[in-house]
């Protein structure tokens, strides 16, 4: 490992010396929104008529090094913004610092202006998708605009049900996706027990999903990475918005100050009046239920080369549910994150970002049944230091390296009848180091080799992960791409797709090897016509040493840690098609996924007559063979906009019960035990799923306070009663099998004022 690091440092130094000797010039700077001063991620900057160009990084910073002195027309572009163009003259050896403001494109424009060469080569790496934050607010959503629900519309991403915002990506369960908010891990990003995600759409500016084959700068999960960045806050003027909705209301305010900007966004459920009304006529209504979240950020621009920011998030759900006079259930769960970020520009070629993060996840379910209390105290604390260096020795290489190190503390106490029945406190140190190079040996080829080294203290696990991405551009409109990566995962989630409020994470340890897997992705990204995109990807991924809580353990007390788990394997493969219209009065996309997911655990899905010896691969419930999404967004007039989404998917897999019998004589109960015999697990399919949602929005003025937007939405327009699962009624003989349905038709209305 030391030899590899030394070699890489040698490349760094050698390249620097070579470039300095040539007396080339460079241009670098931040790209921001002209109205708000928000930095723009993945904006394209380039020189017209050349292939010199770069995209801004996650801090909105770009660098184009190694430019021959001369006069150029610098162009900048970003989807939804007017193209930027400026003539610049570069002297030998000049390092021009040029911060660029891009002007948001007015929505009245029917056609997008002709775009620069650089934009046609928009930086879209394999397996990567970006979700427009405006689209998140515009999409029809169940009561509340939701980041994860929007992500679920992308090909390769599936939802477990209408009630779950969990992300099932390319055959991976939700715990296989690393979720980063301002570079900080979020462990249970859900409100309302999983119904929707914790991220307030008013507070975020960028959502990016790395579905698979993701680069070496990320790690820690087998499947994918979702990065979410909060807004920095308006650097030009104080602005805000307030939205009143059926389920929740939210408000945000942002603005500048002398040395930077700030932002604060809050959201809270507003269900209390509804619950109070329901309690008058309906039994079993919670006596208390609310959730809230707060996002905040303050930026301090110390000077041109140093920026600091402090961001925080806090979210919580609380419910109290007295389901009889002598039984009450209470649940309190949530997340808190904080991150302190320092961006430093050493030179036009060397850029660094260092962040200190803290993340806490907690849940405290508390039952009191007939005078017998049961309480769980579950806390996760994750404190880390992360630093990334980006170095551009010349136009052919973009080197990135960095480390991420931290302490992960896991506390779990189960207390039954005032006695501790299970207690666990695990503290792990983890560290990772990565290096990757984006190498452009020619105009047509881009190679991104990389490697990531991971260490996890419990069990002393050291894992090396090679990564490689290759891109070939036969012409300006077609990119052929491929990627391979090895991925490791040291933690696992204990959850239930129907309810995320009890989620518990457990870690690998001595005797519990981390899970690992390989991912292979090939694909093409094309621009068949101006402003259209067509992407096709094929993927295959393996999952080995999967460890998850053994579902057949009613009590884990006293068991050795490794005996709490079952260990399995899996694989998934499929293809995804994404056809997009990016600009104009009508925008939208069409996504199709053909997917196969298989898992296997010892003894599970075994033949009934040979349970010890056999286990077979089975499709998990969320496996869907075909998944088809259409999203359309049409500007009807200056004021009215229509948005729709339609999803058709093969029914989820389920296990058909084949036979039954009854056990009568269990000595400790008078209950007759009904038992099923089944064949292969999940070998049948529920009816196909389909749902159409629509949304109309009208913009206007709210007195003289500011612009307003009224949204009228209908979820499940034709009230398709999609089946979630089947329920068995044993009171009937023969057994009655009933559908448990998902959401019926639901209207929703919200009103937003921007000031």
């Amino acid at each position, binding site marked *: 490992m030391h030899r590899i690091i030394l070699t890489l440092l040698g490349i760094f130094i050698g390249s620097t010396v070579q470039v300095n000797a040539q007396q080339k010039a460079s241009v670098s700077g931040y790209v921001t929104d002209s109205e708000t001063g928000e930095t723009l991620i993945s904006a394209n900057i380039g020189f017209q008529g050349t292939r010199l160009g770069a995209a801004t990084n996650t801090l909105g910073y770009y660098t184009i090094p190694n430019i021959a002195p001369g006069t150029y027309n610098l162009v900048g572009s970003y989807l939804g913004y007017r193209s930027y163009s400026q003539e610049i003259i570069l002297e030998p050896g000049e390092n021009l610092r040029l911060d660029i403001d891009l002007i948001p494109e007015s929505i009245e424009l029917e056609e997008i202006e002709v775009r620069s060469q650089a934009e046609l080569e928009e930086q879209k790496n394999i397996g990567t998708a970006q979700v427009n934050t405006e689209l998140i607010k515009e999409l029809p959503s169940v009561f509340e605009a939701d980041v994860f629900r929007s992500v679920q519309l992308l090909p390769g991403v599936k939802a477990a049900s209408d009630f779950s915002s969990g992300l099932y990506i390319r055959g991976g369960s939700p715990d296989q996706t690393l979720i980063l908010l301002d570079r900080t891990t979020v462990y249970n990003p859900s409100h309302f027990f999983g119904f929707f995600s914790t991220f307030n759409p008013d507070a975020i500016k960028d959502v990016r999903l790395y579905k698979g084959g993701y680069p070496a700068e990320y790690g820690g999960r087998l499947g994918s990475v979702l990065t979410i960045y909060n807004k920095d806050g308006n650097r030009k003027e104080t602005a805000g918005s307030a939205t009143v909705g059926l389920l929740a209301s939210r408000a945000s305010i942002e603005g500048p100050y002398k040395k930077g900007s700030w932002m604060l966004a809050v959201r809270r459920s507003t269900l209390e009046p509804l619950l109070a009304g329901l309690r008058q006529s309906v039994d079993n209504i919670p006596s208390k239920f609310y959730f809230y979240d707060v996002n905040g950020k303050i930026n301090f621009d110390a000077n041109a080369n140093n920026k600091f920011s402090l961001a925080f998030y806090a979210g919580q759900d609380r419910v109290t549910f007295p389901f009889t006079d002598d039984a009450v259930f209470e649940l309190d769960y949530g997340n808190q994150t904080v991150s302190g970020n320092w961006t430093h520009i050493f030179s036009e070629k060397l850029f660094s970002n260092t962040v200190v993060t803290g993340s806490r996840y907690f849940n405290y379910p508390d039952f009191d049944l007939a005078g017998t209390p049961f309480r769980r105290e579950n806390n996760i604390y994750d404190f880390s230091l992360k630093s990334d260096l980006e170095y551009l020795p010349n136009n052919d290489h973009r080197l990135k390296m960095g480390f991420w190190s931290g302490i992960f503390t896991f506390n779990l106490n189960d207390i039954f009848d005032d006695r501790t029945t299970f207690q666990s406190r695990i503290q792990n140190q983890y560290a990772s180091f990565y290096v990757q190079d984006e190498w452009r040996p020619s105009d047509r080829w881009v190679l991104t080799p990389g490697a990531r080294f991971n260490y996890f203290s419990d069990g002393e696990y050291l894992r090396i992960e090679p990564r490689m991405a290759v891109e070939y551009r036969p012409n300006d409109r077609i990119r052929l791409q491929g990627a391979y990566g090895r991925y490791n995962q040291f933690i696992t989630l204990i959850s239930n797709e129907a309810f995320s409020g009890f989620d518990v994470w457990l870690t690998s340890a001595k005797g519990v090897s981390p899970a690992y897997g390989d991912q292979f992705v090939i694909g093409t990204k094309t621009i068949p016509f101006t402003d259209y995109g067509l992407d096709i990807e094929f993927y295959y991924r393996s999952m080995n040493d999967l460890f998850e809580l053994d579902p057949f353990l009613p009590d884990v007390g*006293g068991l050795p840690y490794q005996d709490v788990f079952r260990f399995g394997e899996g694989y998934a493969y499929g293809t995804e098609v994404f056809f997009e219209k990016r600009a104009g009065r009508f925008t939208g996309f069409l996504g199709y996924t053909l997917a196969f997911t298989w898992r296997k655990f010892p003894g599970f899905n075994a033949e009934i007559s040979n349970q010890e010896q056999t286990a077979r691969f089975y499709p998990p419930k969320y496996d869907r063979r075909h998944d088809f999404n259409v999203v359309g967004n049409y500007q009807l007039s200056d004021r009215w906009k229509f948005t729709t989404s339609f999803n058709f998917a093969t029914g989820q897999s389920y296990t058909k019960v084949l036979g039954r019998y009854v056990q009568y004589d269990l*000595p400790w109960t008078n209950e007759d035990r009904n038992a099923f015999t089944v064949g292969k697990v999940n070998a*049948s399919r529920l009816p196909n799923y389909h749902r159409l949602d629509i949304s109309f929005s009208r913009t206007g003025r709210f007195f003289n306070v500011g612009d307003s937007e009224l949204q009228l939405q209908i979820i499940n327009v034709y009230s398709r009663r999609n089946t979630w699962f089947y329920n068995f009624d044993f009171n009937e003989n023969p057994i009655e099998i009933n559908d448990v349905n998902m959401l019926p038709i639901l209207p929703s209305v919200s009103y937003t004022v921007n000031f």
Partner: protein
Amino acid sequence: MKHYSLILLAFALVLSSCDPYAQDEYEEYYVVESYLVANALLPEVRLSTTVPADAFYDFEQAAINSAAIEIQLLESGPESAIEQSWTYQLNAPGIYVPELDHNVIPGRTYKLDIILPETLERITSTATVPEAFEIIGEVQDSITYQSTEQLEFTLSASSYPGRQNIFVFNSVSLQPFSENLTPFYAELIQDSDQPEVALEEFANNSSGIINESGFEFNPDGSATVQYPWIGVAFYEDNLIVANTIDDNIYDFIRSQETQLGGSTLSPGEIQNIIYNIDGGIGVFGALASDTVQVYIKRPGS
């Protein structure tokens, strides 16, 4: 564009046309049910078959009445020779009883051996009886419901080969009348679709599976248990029973209870129960138990 579409369509058709994971058809299995209780007489054995899930279920119709059944005491474990055996005879449809009495010996292994004369099919299973234990020391003979002082008793040391003891507790009401229900269970009965069935079930109210590691152990190896109020469904006289179970019952219960959800498995992801029977399904299990009687007083009485 056209080329892409055609390639994609072809790929989709190829992949989706073959189904390597077809749904199985219903298959009939022999079903066994019998529980050895330490120091108790040999139990009856139930023998029947499964029925299709959508068919009317009636035990008598599913019963097997022509089997030759023996329970055998093995010398020293599951693979050892037979020390003694007891022949069973049909007593009622599908229900067999031993021809001779025998008290089940704690710590010993028994084998169930069933032969079906028509087909010569054989069903076998072995069960190791947990070591017997006792509820020792003083136990309150009456206690006020939900008072701060809980029912407390001490279990003598017990053992099961290869693992900690696994317990199930139950309370058996001796006056299981609706007016004797404790408030929590009274409300459940009110909300029930079938209150009479629910009342009968509550009359023998069990705790579910509990590992002994959750108990408070005393220096002599005995364990002190505080009986939770949730386990008490009726006021007045109750038998409180502590049971320690063998692997066969443990496997059966823990997997049967996940068939209808409640675990980390997704709803509808049902798997077969874990069986320890060759040639059939069901359970041939063993347990040891001891009982105390306690009078549950109404608060304020």
